[in-house]
């Protein structure tokens, strides 16, 4: 049991990071904090993929005569794309937050909700 936990220690940490992100995302009313949570959540997935590609004892995947065992480079390449997607999402999110701030003069979710309710009446 202990061996199982220690053997997958990186995945336990990744799960912890992921939950921190998801919890921040759900529990905070501040839109900026929500985006921060989202970014942490995405980072956890990136770590997850990079962990997947690690081969025990393998070196960086650059071909060299001295080494025969390499880590799998594919997950890292995939994550390069995922990072770009993450950056785009965060940037778009911040852009929206700025415009929400200009339109509502607040970035607290419940305050925005009350303002919307007022509009409705």
């Amino acid at each position, binding site marked *: 049991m202990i061996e199982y936990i220690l053997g997958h220690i990186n995945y336990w940490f990744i799960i912890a990071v992921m939950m921190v992100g998801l919890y921040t*995302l759900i529990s905070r009313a501040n839109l900026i904090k929500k985006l921060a949570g989202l970014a942490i*959540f995405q980072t956890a997935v990136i770590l997850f*993929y990079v962990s997947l590609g690690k081969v025990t004892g393998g070196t960086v995947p650059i071909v060299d005569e001295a080494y025969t065992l390499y880590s799998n480079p594919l997950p890292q390449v995939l994550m390069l794309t995922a990072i770009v*997607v993450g950056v785009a999402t965060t940037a778009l*999110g911040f852009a*929206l937050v700025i415009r*929400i701030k200009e339109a509502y003069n607040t970035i607290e979710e419940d305050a925005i909700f009350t303002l*919307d309710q007022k509009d409705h009446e």
Partner: protein
Amino acid sequence: MNEQLTILLVVVPLMIAPITALFKSHTISWILTAIVSFTSLILSFIILFDVIDGSHVIYELGGWRPPWGIEYKIDSLNAFIALIVSAIACLSTIFAWQSVPKEINENNYGLFYAALQLCLLGLLGIALTGDIFNLFVFLEISSLSSYALISMGRSRKALTAAFSYLILGTIGATFFLIGVGFLYAASGSLNIADIATRFSTFADMQLVMTGFIFILLGLGLKAAIFPMHSWLPNAYGHAPSVVSIFLSATATKVSIYVLIRVLFDLYPVAYWQALLLPQILLVLGCVGVIYGSFRAWQQVELKRLLAFSSVAQIGYIIIGISLLNNDGITASVMHLFNHALIKATLFMGAGIILYRTNTTKLSELRGFGGSMPWTFAAIVLAGLSLIGVPGTVGFVTKWYLLSGAIAQGKWIVVVAILAGSVLAIAYVWKIVEAMYFNSKRKMVIQNVKSGDINLAKAPISLSLALWIGAAGCLYFGLYTELPYQSAQSIATALLSSEVAQ
């Protein structure tokens, strides 16, 4: 030569979108968008007729063989989805000609159209690719551009709607990505066909099941399947008209297409039958139909009403998938097409109302039906299709759906479908009542720019697009060959791939 045509579907928007982003003029950006969407329509027609007999077109990107390279493998389902997406893109483009100058800030024309093309690019890419990570990338391209497009709506609520869509959409996409990661850890491959053929070698690994659940949840969020639909009504209700038309008809459909691919091609049916997933989906579908229709009936604003009705229609599609017989899947696939057509038409109607009266609140629309008889007639026609009156496209789908449910002896499903239709009558009637009756009441007109006394002039391009859509609802209801043949061939292919395994 036809292989090169498939990639052109993605390359044309990829090359033209960055050029469009540089222009500020509405005319130039519109013409470029029109070129993109009509080229895609022609290309997808050619491809569909190539593969409708059940053959494949295979395209290897960069000349790399799968599973190392990314492979586009086009069968009739891919081509059919590509056709739906590009056909709706054409309708939206026609509609955009007069609608965009009124609704979008004039400094953003180029960027707006570029985002629209990128969204089209993403959706077409999802429809074509046979590589599951590539699919994620295209999913995010289309989603990111749709968040931006939705946020360009007129009211400030569009901003919050876009923001919550961004949060939920990103969670969905990230869940999908986690699922793909688990699947990759188990199989060592990202090619859908490759994973499917070697599935039995790693089927009992727990990673595969975990991955499956993550992928399902992610796609469920993106496709707005019943309990995960909360982003949809606001997003489509507050987006600019063109965006509502385009996204409501394509975005969720394409996510459902991915769901079909995952359920039938990536994972064997027996695998998720053992997880009781058909039953779960069936319940979600039925509840979604009734809940969506009921909430639609409660709405007081036309675009939100239509958005909730989308939730219900997605329920029908899910029911068809989970019936797991030929009729059910044929109905689902046909409904992807039919609903795209119906909803696009209805949102175009709402867009024209918004254009001419500056409001879509049902209470303020009283009596406008008489002042704009043609628009009103088209809306009624599409509304009848939504209910499923014989002679319209909606009827065809519901007929096959019912016969599929009866064949399985699932009477509760039959009841749910019928109840959904009754509620559909109720909410379509609500529109008709608001627009046609009570016309004696004094109309409250908000200030309408560039119009005659109480209504802006009938916009030609808008009416043209609307009537193409409405005619489509009628035409494909009477002459069902094209969608039916495609759907039939798709359903056979999906189910037979099971028998082979």
